[in-house]
Structure formats: structure tokens, C-alpha cells
């Protein structure tokens, strides 16, 4: 067993640095003459660092901008502004050729193990698909053997190389997705809700697999999820997003046990604890209403329409993501300070 209190310094160099990333989508009306009637601020000034061998969790409610953050980093969406650096290289200025190489080093595993695999391709072809775009990664005569190794690595039977996706269970399909990502020998794997669609026992198999592969291969993970229990388990550091912005960030103990942002508090209190005896212990905070639309501009703090701690200043000044004495950055004027008897 490793020691608790994961320390980011323990991990290697920074492999991915995101600075003031912004992605706005125009909202248009009209079919022939499109006119812009508004803006969806999907990602609005997000910064973070990912270290070698580290797992950074990105959590938050549906629509808060998690997937868009990942897609913008990979240039699948054009950033409105901001920077992303991969090992010191500015991703947004890379040439087409350099970008192809980067897409090899940063791989993505998707949420839906059913939809993300081509049903007409065999498992072997799916795993080796990336080598057609990046032939340099694996010489042709080594490919079949490598697919066997990869299948073994992710806990699948190498004899099943010629089977089709529908012949596998959900968890097995997700393993195929992992093997496909690993075939290109990435440094970073972006996992976008990789276990959300899976049953708990299967989910645990995939989570363990991801952890083992990280230990073996020194991978860095950007782990996107809305299941806060899984995130606590797998992540070294966590960033909580709300409407395109990071509300709070820190390690597991800072975010979960010394929660300082009201949104994080509400989010955590909504996660049911799998123990009937704990039913009436936790004070549940029921947030009224859904996440407001990221298209509606909101002055000041964007959480204030649902926040029970909001005061006048919250409508006027947007709270910065800074440490106000709680030991980790929190974007709230009234961030909870640890062991404050006054609260």
C-alpha cells in the first residue's frame, strides 16, 4: 500500500499546462442567413497543470465544459483564446504534421464503450487502426504480436483477436478502447467518463486496469467524470468545474475533506453513501433548479443563483480562483476556512 496524502511534487515534470483556456460557441438563428444571437461560454478561463505519472480529475455537472476543455486542448475545437503547452510546446501553434504526432502522444478513451467501437471491424483491426495513420510506431511485422500483447495487457484473451465488438460485454469493450489508445504508446490519456456506463463490478475492473497501466507505463491521465467516488479513488488532484470555470482545486483531502467552495459542498452532499446506516447522518444540500445556461451571462459569481451563502458582493465581483487561507485555490469570496469555529 502506498502512503496517503498524494503530493504532486512526487510526480515528474509538467507534461501538460493549460493557461487561461477559453472556448465560446456562437448561438445562431436562421437557416439561410445565420446571425449570432448569443454565446455559450463553455470554457471560460481554465488553467491547470498535469504532471508525468499523475491523474488529474475534472468533475462537475453535465454541461459544465469538461469535454469541451479536452476537445479544445486536442484542437478538435478551436480555442477562443488561451494556451495549452505539451512538454513546453505550444499546442495551438503546431503545424499539421506536428499535430498528428501530438494526437498520438495524447490519446482519448470515450464514455460509451458501445458507440466508440466500429461494429464491422474485428478487435484486432480496431486496436491496430491507429498504426495506419502513424505507421512509424510499430513496424508491420511486429503488429500482430503487439496486438496479442496489448490484449493480454488489458486482460482480454488474445485468441479473441478476430471477434467483433458485439461479442464482448461492456467492460470488455471498454478494455478494447483502452488497448486501442495504448497501441499508439501515448504519454497522456484523456479519459472522458470511461466508466460511467458500466456496472459497479465492471467499473472496478476498468479502474484497476487504468491504475496498473499508469504504474507500468508512467502515463498521465486527465480523468473526466461526474462520479465523485470514482474520482476520489483514482485521482491525485481534482478540479471541480462549474459553468466553464474551475470552482475549487486541490488534492483528494483538500477537495473532499476540507471542502471550501459551496458548490463542491453541495455536489459532495448529493452523492449517496452506500450505507443505509449513514442515511440520516449527512446533511444533504439540495440545490434548487438545474445548472443555469452557460449562454446567459451572469454578473459576479456564476454560482450565486443556487448558492445559499451568496451576498451582495457575489453579484458584483467575480471571485478569483485563489487561496484565501484554506490551503488550496477556491473561487469563492466566502470560501470556507478550515476549522473556522465561526461557521
Amino acid at each position, binding site marked *: 500500500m502506498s502512503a496517503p496524502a498524494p503530493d504532486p511534487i512526487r510526480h515528474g515534470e509538467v507534461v501538460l499546462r493549460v493557461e487561461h483556456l477559453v472556448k465560446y460557441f456562437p448561438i445562431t438563428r436562421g437557416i439561410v442567413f445565420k446571425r449570432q444571437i448569443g454565446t455559450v461560454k463553455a470554457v471560460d478561463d481554465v488553467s491547470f497543470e498535469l504532471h508525468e505519472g499523475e491523474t488529474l480529475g475534472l468533475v462537475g455537472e453535465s454541461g459544465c465544459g469538461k469535454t469541451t476543455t479536452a476537445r479544445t486542448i486536442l484542437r478538435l475545437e478551436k480555442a477562443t483564446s488561451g494556451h495549452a503547452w505539451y512538454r513546453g510546446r505550444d499546442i495551438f501553434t503546431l503545424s499539421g504534421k506536428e499535430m498528428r504526432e501530438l494526437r498520438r502522444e495524447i490519446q482519448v478513451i470515450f464514455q460509451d464503450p458501445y458507440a466508440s467501437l466500429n461494429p464491422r471491424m474485428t478487435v484486432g483491426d480496431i486496436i491496430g487502426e491507429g498504426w495506419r495513420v502513424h505507421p512509424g510506431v510499430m513496424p508491420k511485422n511486429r503488429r500482430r504480436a503487439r496486438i496479442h500483447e496489448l490484449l493480454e495487457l488489458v486482460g482480454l484473451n488474445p485468441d479473441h483477436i478476430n471477434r467483433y465488438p458485439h461479442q464482448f*460485454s461492456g467492460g470488455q469493450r471498454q478494455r478494447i478502447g483502452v488497448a486501442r489508445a495504448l497501441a499508439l504508446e501515448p504519454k497522456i490519456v484523456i479519459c472522458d467518463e470511461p466508466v460511467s456506463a458500466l456496472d459497479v463490478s*465492471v467499473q472496478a475492473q476498468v479502474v484497476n486496469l487504468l491504475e496498473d497501466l499508469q504504474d507500468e507505463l508512467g502515463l498521465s491521465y486527465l480523468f473526466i467524470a*461526474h462520479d465523485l467516488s470514482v474520482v476520489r479513488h483514482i485521482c491525485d488532484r481534482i478540479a471541480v468545474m462549474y459553468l466553464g470555470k474551475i470552482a475549487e482545486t486541490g488534492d483528494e483531502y483538500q477537495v473532499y475533506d476540507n471542502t471550501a467552495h459551496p458548490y463542491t459542498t453541495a455536489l459532495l452532499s448529493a452523492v449517496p453513501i*452506500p450505507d443505509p446506516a449513514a442515511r440520516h447522518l449527512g446533511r*444533504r444540500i*439540495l440545490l434548487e433548479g438545474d445548472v443555469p445556461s452557460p449562454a446567459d451571462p451572469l454578473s459576479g459569481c456564476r454560482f450565486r443563483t443556487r448558492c445559499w451563502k451568496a451576498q451582495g458582493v457575489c453579484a458584483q465581483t467575480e471571485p478569483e480562483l485563489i487561496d484565501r487561507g484554506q490551503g488550496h485555490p477556491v473561487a469563492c469570496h466566502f470560501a470556507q476556512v478550515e476549522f473556522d469555529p465561526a461557521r
Partner: protein
Amino acid sequence: MATTLSRDAVAGRPVDPAAPLLVVEDLHVEFRIEAGTVRAVNGLSYTLRRGETVAILGESGSGKSVSAQAVMGIIDSPPGFVTGGSVRFRGVELLDLSEADRRRVRGDRIAMIFQDALTALNPVFPVGWQIAEMFRMHRGVPRKEAREKAIELMERVKIPSARTRAGSYPHEFSGGMRQRVMIAMALSLDPEILIADEPTTALDVTVQAQIMALLAELQQQTGMGLILITHDLGVVAEVADQVVVMYAGREVEKGPSLPVYHRPAHPYTLGLMDSLPRRDVHTERLRPIKGSPPDLLAIPPGCPFRPRCPYARDICAAEEPPLAAVTSEHVSACHFWEEVSRERAGA
């Protein structure tokens, strides 16, 4: 929303005042398809009392939805057939009713929120109209009054500014709001039983918490019984009085939620509990159940969990374990339930 219809009879048959709300006994459902017979539900029994919640737990394909469809009388037949058992609603056997009578029970006395609720709304009609339609169709309520009732119900499921939103179309609502519309429709006729099939799986935890709180409140107000189908152990722990754990179409463990969670007596239940990460404490390493569930077309003889079970011995391959009484209200279908339940002794 009180209805004036008599609720002392079910399709013309008098209810038994002493009977529980719903008793499901030894239910069997199979699908006869080209490849063979899928035994989707293989001897399921449970009792639901007024105001209580029975949770049906189990992994994908274990027969949860099919068992609910059998209670509702909406099994796709053919290929599906209820081949045995009994479903008694307040003492009245539903399996004996004609299709017309069952239709009358459905929606009116027993309502269901479907697993794919988010796509179940009709995209071309306003949501308020769709709810009002329930009153018009089942109760013959005039249009204007039905609309008022719909708005009232939308308010009750906490859809903000219900009066204005009644004219909105489904696509103008978020997932959580659409789920509330579905709940409103299910609740419109004041059912005595609500079957909720994965009502919150696709939703954020914050919305999930709102919806579960809403259902609990309604149960308290009306005594409605809830059958909750899910594979979310957290949600079950929060709300269930009774838990039925299904595996490959069988009930493998059943009892009040506290003993089932604290002293599981079946290796599958224990395995589920062990696979879970927790948000309140740090977990070092998850302990998944190895392998995957059996093909329902070819369930091996003996115990269906045997290929994945760390407790399995020779007898498990030879004899299917009967339901053993762990206590008077807690049962387990495992030859070695005593050994298994000692795992968590003193916990």
C-alpha cells in the same frame, strides 16, 4: 388531485383489506427466441407494503426490467412469456386478469417510469399537454380542467414557473426537467404503486438527489409504494426498506437494507459492496468481482454465480443452492451463506 373512483376493487374484484399492496411470488419469465430460451426471471418473490420502498438491485441483464414489465403486464409476447408465479395487487391476482382489465390497472393503480424516460416524451407536443392528456384519457376530465391539473402537478414535481413552462416542448427542457415531467405523468392518476426503472441513472447527482427527495415526500404524503430498479448501491442505501439482489434472473439475496449491506450473506452481494469506491473515505485498491455474468441461454448447472465465486466448492457445480433463511426476514441463495456472512461479522 383526489379521485372519486372507488379504490376498494381492482377490475371489479374486491380487494383484500388485510393483504399487502403487492405480493410477487415465484415469478418466472422467459423469452423464446431463435437461439433458444432466455430464462430472464427465474423465481422472484417480494412483498411491497404501503409507503415502503423495495429496491431491485443487480447488474445489467440480470432481469430487473423484465420483472417489472411482468408486474405491469407489458411483457413483449411473443417472444416473452410469464411461465409461472403470482402477482397479487392488494390480494387480487393480476396474472388472471384480461388484457383490458390489466390496462385499467396500469397507469391508474400501478404506474411506471421507464428506463429510457428521456426519450419517452413525444417531441411534437408541449409537455403540459402531454400531462393533461393523462387526465383526459383516463378520467375524461374536460380540456381546461385537465390543463389546470397538469400545471398543478408540474408544480408538485418542482418544475419552476410551471404555468409558463407548460407550453414548452420537451427539447426545451434539460434532462432533469424532462425526468420530472415523466414523473409527473406517472403520478398523474395517483397510483398506489410506482415502479421506477433507473429513474436517475442518466442524471447528475444533484438532480438525482432532488428527484429522490421528491419521491420520498410523495410516498409520505400518499402512502404510495415504490419499486426502485437500479444498479446504484448508493441510491438504494438511501431509500430502500427492502432490497432484492438479482443475479442471472434469480434472487440471490433479499432482506431489509441494513443487514443486506452490513452483513451480506451472498458472495455476489459481498462482491458488489467490495467493488465500490467511496466518496467519504480513501480507498486503496478496488476489489472487483472477476469475470462476467453467464449467458442466459446457457446458464451452467448448479449455482449460476459459481464461475466467479471465491467461495465455490464442488457442491456448487452440482446443486443449485436453495434460499436459506439467514434471519426470519433475510435470505440468501448460497450453500455457504454462513461462512460468507461471517466476513462482515462485528462490522
